[in-house]
């Protein structure tokens, strides 16, 4: 663990440069990956990475030695060739895009594996050089390799910064951008070119199999945190950068564990390490993000359902009192229990809650509404009855069906909508009395329509 800490804080001179390269790579992949995902080109990026493998092998065969520039050029050439093959298959045969991607991806990759085995078996074949391209080995990066990554990173980030509005316009509504005169085909080619270049420079570090993940996962994670594209780019870049750095540091560590009393050393290749870190960020985002996250969503539902339950208690107390004509009569627990299909435990919980908010109080014989409770109950019952009346008179729904509908809707009606509802019903003469405003008094019936259905009995 102390090793990891030393690495990640750049304390180790040997790996400083490597971590810098990995961070820049992650940053670039996160940023261009956002546009990749928005433009639905993510899987094409995956095909590109896989198709690059035979290119790398061919470059080795041509040059005869390990040379990053040669590898990158070979990767680029074969990667673009693969993408063109996909395009050709899609436009000239009946095969759809997903199958075309699968065909090209697997066939090129298979061919690349075969080439790499041939090279390995060759007497002068430098096996470590090629195998590391499958899953990546950031530690093999040299200073000049990181320089290449840095240059590409600057180019990509500059392009995204300068062409932000052009690229976002292209991704959102290509046709509209075309009618404005933007050269959408050229922009698409440029975007694809940036994706290609970013993918290819990532291959030595992350490997062909998982490079696409570094394009996709930071962008997907960033989507949970914001509704604005510019912020999404920043967050995706940051997550990419963190994944690159932490993943690379992790892959530089050696783990020891014992199997059958033998000590085994293991090091995780860079690609999987980076991707697992990115995935962790994604899972955390999915759970924790304040608006779109799962936990936030569950919390909102919980708050909503408790609010609904509180409303039901008040309304039940009111309706029982309405039947008897006296709101100060205590209502027994059993009477409440019979009114709706709630469990005794749930009912008791809601009564306690309402009591703690001084909306009801416990009296001999049961419970009664306080003044504030009565006011709130009047408000709730009014909304409920308004909606019921509307459903019966305007939507021609049978009176005994509307209670449940109103139950579900009344909690989400905005004040504006309620006012319009009341207005509509009043104009049609379906509201008793002409009083305006909801005065909390025994004359509350003035503004509350009578119920279209009998009160009491179990509700679904």
């Amino acid at each position, binding site marked *: 663990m102390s090793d990891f800490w030393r690495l990640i804080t750049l304390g180790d001179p040997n790996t400083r440069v490597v971590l810098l390269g990995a961070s820049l790579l992650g940053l670039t992949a996160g940023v261009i990956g956002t546009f990749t995902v*928005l433009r639905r080109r993510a899987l094409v990026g995956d095909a590109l990475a896989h198709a690059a493998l035979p290119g790398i092998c061919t470059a080795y065969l041509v040059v005869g030695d390990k040379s990053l520039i040669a590898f990158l050029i070979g990767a680029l050439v074969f990667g673009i060739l693969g993408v063109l093959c996909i395009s050709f298959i899609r436009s000239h045969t009946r095969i759809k895009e997903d199958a075309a991607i699968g065909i090209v991806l697997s066939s090129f990759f298979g061919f690349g594996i075969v080439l790499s085995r041939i090279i390995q078996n060759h007497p002068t074949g430098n096996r470590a050089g090629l195998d590391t391209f499958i899953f990546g080995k950031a530690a093999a990066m040299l200073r000049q390799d990181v320089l290449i990554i840095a240059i590409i990173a600057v180019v990509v980030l500059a392009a995204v910064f*300068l*062409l*932000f*509005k*052009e690229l*976002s*316009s292209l*991704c*959102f*509504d290509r*046709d*509209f*951008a*075309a*009618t*404005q*005169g*933007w050269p959408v085909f050229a922009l698409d080619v440029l975007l694809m070119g940036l994706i290609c270049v970013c993918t290819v420079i990532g291959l030595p570090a992350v490997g062909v199999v998982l490079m696409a993940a570094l394009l996709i996962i930071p962008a997907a994670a960033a*989507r949970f945190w*914001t*509704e*604005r*594209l510019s912020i*999404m780019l920043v967050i995706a870049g940051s997550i990419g950068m963190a994944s690159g750095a932490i993943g690379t540091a992790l892959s530089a560590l050696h783990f020891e564990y014992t199997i059958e009393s033998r000590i085994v050393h293991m090091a995780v290749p860079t690609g999987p390490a980076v991707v697992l870190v990115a995935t962790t960020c994604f899972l955390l985002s999915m759970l924790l993000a304040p608006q779109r996250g799962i936990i936030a969503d569950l919390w909102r539902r919980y708050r909503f359902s408790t609010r609904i339950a509180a409303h039901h208690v008040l309304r039940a107390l009111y309706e029982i009192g309405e039947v008897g004509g006296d709101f100060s009569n205590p209502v027994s627990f059993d009477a409440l229990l019979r009114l709706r299909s709630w469990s005794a435990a749930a009912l008791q919980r809601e009564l306690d809650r309402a009591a703690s908010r001084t909306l009801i109080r416990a009296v001999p014989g049961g419970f009664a509404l306080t003044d504030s409770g009565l006011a709130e109950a009047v408000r709730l019952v009014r909304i409920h009855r308004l909606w019921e009346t509307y459903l019966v008179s305007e939507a021609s729904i049978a009176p005994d069906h509307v209670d449940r509908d109103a139950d579900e809707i009344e909690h989400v009606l905005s004040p504006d909508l309620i006012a319009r509802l009341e207005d509509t019903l009043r104009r049609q003469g379906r509201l008793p009395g002409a009083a305006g405003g909801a005065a909390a008094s025994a004359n509350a019936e003035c503004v509350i329509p009578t119920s279209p259905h009998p009160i009491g009995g179990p509700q679904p």
Partner: protein
Amino acid sequence: MKPDLDDDPGQFVAQSSTLPSSAEQRPTSRPSVEQSSAVLNGQRESPPIPAAPLAVDVHDVTVAYHRKPVLWDVDLELPAGRLIAVVGPNGAGKSTLLKAILGLVPIASGRIRVFGRTTSEARSMIGYVPQRETVDWDFPVSALDVVVMGRYGRLGWFRRPGRRDRDAAMECLKQLGMAEFADRQINQLSGGQQQRVFLARALAQEAAIYFMDEPLAGVDAATEQAIIELLRSLRSAGKTVVAVHHDLQTVPDYFDHVVLLNMRVVAAGPTGSVFTQANLQATYGGRLTLLDEAAEAVRRGRPA
């Protein structure tokens, strides 16, 4: 010069002939088409109405999708300053016609002019409202961001929209009654609200002619009213609107000029004279199965 069905179908698409200007006489067997253009010489039945500038001039345009012709030999002259509806059955090529005029789909033959210029020259005069379905509404932008995109055309490369662009965009939103939704993410808007945002974006383009693809489809009554009021105010300001419209009932109420289209132009002209039972029957009557089969044969490259 016109491609024959017996010829190689590939030539059908590849051809892009330059045709003489539209000074040729119209065949009198066509249903009556009222011309308001001063380009034609006086060899017609009805006297010309005083010349209004031609907003759109489509001459002998054929458009093919994947080698299948969807628009055959379309001739169209649309006057400026009108609200023009394009109606026809499904698959009639209405959206294709719009896209052909806008340069979004290639034309196999013919020539198109907007206010006398090619579409690329006339870009700054053109506004576009595409169908709602063409866009990913989950995209991370707000309503105001979308409307600001309407101003991108006048910004040029690399420049960012500034305060003036955002204020102008806000004004457009206000005109569509969407000011309070400016910062709302677009996937939180209803269908009608999304349509209004699209219209606001087109307004922000400050065009002379607006092309709209089904602007009233799937919107609530309040939005429909708002859109119609907007179109009428555009007309009062001298703008032209060409809208693909799906609801035949409302064509006479909303539009003063109509194009009846079913793979070819059945009739085009002022609503009063052209929107007749006979023309509607010819457009929607489904009597063109031969044409459709021929088109399919062209696509397959084999005799039908």
